[in-house]
Structures are given as structure tokens and as C-alpha cells.
């Protein structure tokens, strides 16, 4: 599940930050880099669209053998993990979801991880 803020909410804070940024501030480069990073994340999320959510929901349905919204199923998965009764396949499911999130939030990190293996 994408971390919040994502998409529109992330663009809004990036734009608000840009509109009030002082180009002469000592941290101007850092602020500009944050704005670029936020935009890049949102662009990648837009490219993926709903595919990541759909894949995660399908993974949860299969893992838990239950229908329902991804958020509710993730809540159920959290409960099972905490109880020590997570189904076989949980780790692989979490890795798949994590790789999809990393591909949006920091694809270079994902590429470095793959290079390490």
C-alpha cells in the first residue's frame, strides 16, 4: 500500500513549498532537490496507476483466501503477523509489495539491491 502522502497530496505540498521557497536561502539546493524528488515519485505513481494496488489486492486475496478491500485485508494481515499466525507465503507477498513500492519511491535503490544479489 502506497505510503501517505502520495499522488495529489504529495504534489500539493511540493507546490506549496516551491511557491514560498527562498532561492537565496542557505538550504535552497536541498529544498529544490526535495521538490524534484516529490515530483518524480508522483510521476512514477501516475505511470503505474492502479496496477500496483490491484496486484497487491490480488496477492492479499490469495494469501488470506478472503475477499475485501486491500486496506482491510492489510489490517487482517497485520493482526495475523502479530499473533504469530501469518500464512505461509507472507514474506514473499510482502517482498513483492515492497518491490512495487520501491520502484515508485526510489527505483535506484531497488536497482542497487538487485545488483547486490
Amino acid at each position, binding site marked *: 500500500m502506497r505510503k501517505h502522502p502520495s499522488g495529489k497530496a504529495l504534489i500539493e505540498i511540493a507546490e506549496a513549498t516551491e511557491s514560498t521557497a527562498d532561492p537565496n536561502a*542557505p538550504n535552497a539546493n536541498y529544498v529544490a532537490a526535495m521538490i524534484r524528488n516529490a515530483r518524480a515519485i508522483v510521476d512514477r505513481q501516475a505511470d503505474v496507476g492502479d496496477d500496483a494496488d490491484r496486484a497487491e489486492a490480488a496477492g492479499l486475496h490469495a494469501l488470506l483466501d478472503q475477499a475485501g478491500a486491500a486496506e482491510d485485508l492489510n489490517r487482517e494481515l497485520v493482526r495475523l503477523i502479530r499473533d504469530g499466525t501469518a500464512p505461509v507465503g507472507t514474506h514473499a507477498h510482502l517482498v513483492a509489495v515492497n518491490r512495487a513500492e520501491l520502484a515508485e519511491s526510489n527505483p535506484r535503490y531497488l536497482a542497487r539491491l538487485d545488483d547486490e544479489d
Partner: protein
Amino acid sequence: MGMAGNLTTEQTSRLAAWLTDEAQAETQVLATERLSGGAIQENHRLEIDVAGGPWPGRHDLVLRRDAASAVATSHSRAEEYALLKAAHKAGVTVPAPCVLCTDESILGGPFFIMHRVSGEARGGRLIKSPPDAALVREIGADLARIHTITPTAAGENLGFLGTPPADPARTAVTQYRAYLDALPDPHPAVEWGLSWLAEHAPAPGEIVLCHRDYRTGNLMIDRAPDGPRLSATLDWEFAGWSDPLEDVGWFLAKCWRFGRWDQEAGGLGPRDDFIAGYTAASGRAAPPDAVAYWEVMAHVRWAVIALQQAWRHVSGEEASLELALTAHVVPELEAEILAMTRGPS
């Protein structure tokens, strides 16, 4: 008088008068200057000249006080001063503490003064230097000195740290689960890490003073002619009683290597040299499995803190792009947690 910095002329005069009392000799403030960084605490460079008494001469100092935006979550200046004093007494490389002032009529709030230390603390800069085995050995040995401070030895001086946890690992797991429960979204990968930590928790051992944010970025390194040296351990605001290997794991954790993954000791040098420095100085073993456990804990703890920070933005408490982006560091931490906790399921 030189630069006014962010202290007003009236504050500087009151400060000079207060210092004259403390130093038992006429004290002049030659210069003050607000130093960069520190959103929660302000640091001001302070140059003084003392005309006699027990501390005669010129002194290059740093005055530390709460910023206007101070939050109540970190240790107070008086507590931080007590930590600095305890660390200095134990031989830890810290700026020597000079005086604490709790009289709010001088600068509007408590402050303390310590000696000024030179060096570079920014992690992104430090990891551009060549890997340095001697430096990370020295850092390991210095961390061991922090861990000589025990609840019994510190007594009332560090009483504000509260009762030491009987079982630091399980206490942390319980606390981080409660933190996650206070957030609106479920986070199964972090939860997975917490379950692994609960299942693999070490038997409780000795409890010592831990810095609890001991990492590249909080260590000042001075480029001396004979090679880089640790010049100060900064930011004691999270210090508390814990398992000594919590600090070892935090320092080694991949998330604190500033991208230089192959130098496992904070991006600065080899893991084995840091561990060798630590074990030789502490006489304490640091078994790889136990250290790895605390490296998982480090990623889980940072993930929980990052999610809390992002929530401060999302909830409307504090609109901030920096806080918002912290949410998007979490997948990196989750990737490391999942890689370190591959299990049968």
C-alpha cells in the same frame, strides 16, 4: 563587541554579567554567532575573555539553548548537560561542558556552555573520504566508553532517565507496536519485522547508558594532519538505558551508511575494525547474530519514527515537504527488514 548573532545586545550584556559571576572575574563577550543547524536547539558560537580567576584568558565556546520551536519530546537542556557531564567524566569524546544556567532571566530560557570543537559532522560529506579502519576503531572504542556508564554508577545524576528496562528488546517491540497502532494505516512489513524481533529477542543482559542515535551524522570528525580523528559525539537527546548492542547495531545499520553500503561501519570504514575497537575497549563480546538482531531493530525503529514523522504532515499537525517525503524512505527500510528476516514463511 563583535557580531551580534541572534542574541540581542541586552541578552549579551546579561550573559557577560552572569559569566563574570560564574568565572569570579571580569568577563567580556567578544563575539557571538548563531551556528547553522538545530531546529529544536540553537547553538551559538561564543568567544569570551576572562580577566583572571580560575579560568583566565580567551575561550572559544558554544552556547546551546532551546529554539523558539522547541518541542517537549527531547531531553531538557539541564538533562542534556547532565548527560554531557557524565559522558565527559567517563572519557567519551564530547565537548567539555563548562556551565549550566537555569536562570531564565538571562536569555529567556535555560542554556549551557561547552567548549567549541572543530570538525565535520555531515554524513554526506564524511563518506566521500577514503575508508578509514583506524577511525572506525577509534569510534568503536569511544562508544565503549559511553557504555561504561551504568544506572548504579550514574545514580541520581541521570535519574531523569527513569527506571532501566528489564528487557530492552521486548520493551522496544511493545513500544513500537503501540506507535504503529496509533497510526491510521496498517504497515504489514514493519509489523513483520517486529514479530521477528519479538521471536528472536536476546535474553536480557547488562543495561548501560546508550546514546540511541549513535551514527554517522552525529559524530564530529576532525581532519587532523595525522589523519581523521573523532572530535565530538553530538545530539544526546535520545540517550537512555538499554542493551549496549543497540548502539552498535544502530551505528552499523545499512540505513546509516549514507549510501556507501560497502563500508559497513557508518559508511566510514570496515565493520570488523569498528567491532574490534568496541570489543577491545569494552571487554564485551559482540557476537554477529546479536549485532544483526540490533541492526534489524535499527531499521524497524527508524521505519516507525519515519512513519510518525510523515503522519505529522498528513494529519495537518505540521505541513512540511521534508516530513512528507520521510514516508517514502520507509520502503527502503522495509526492503532491508524483509531481507534480514527471511524465514520459513
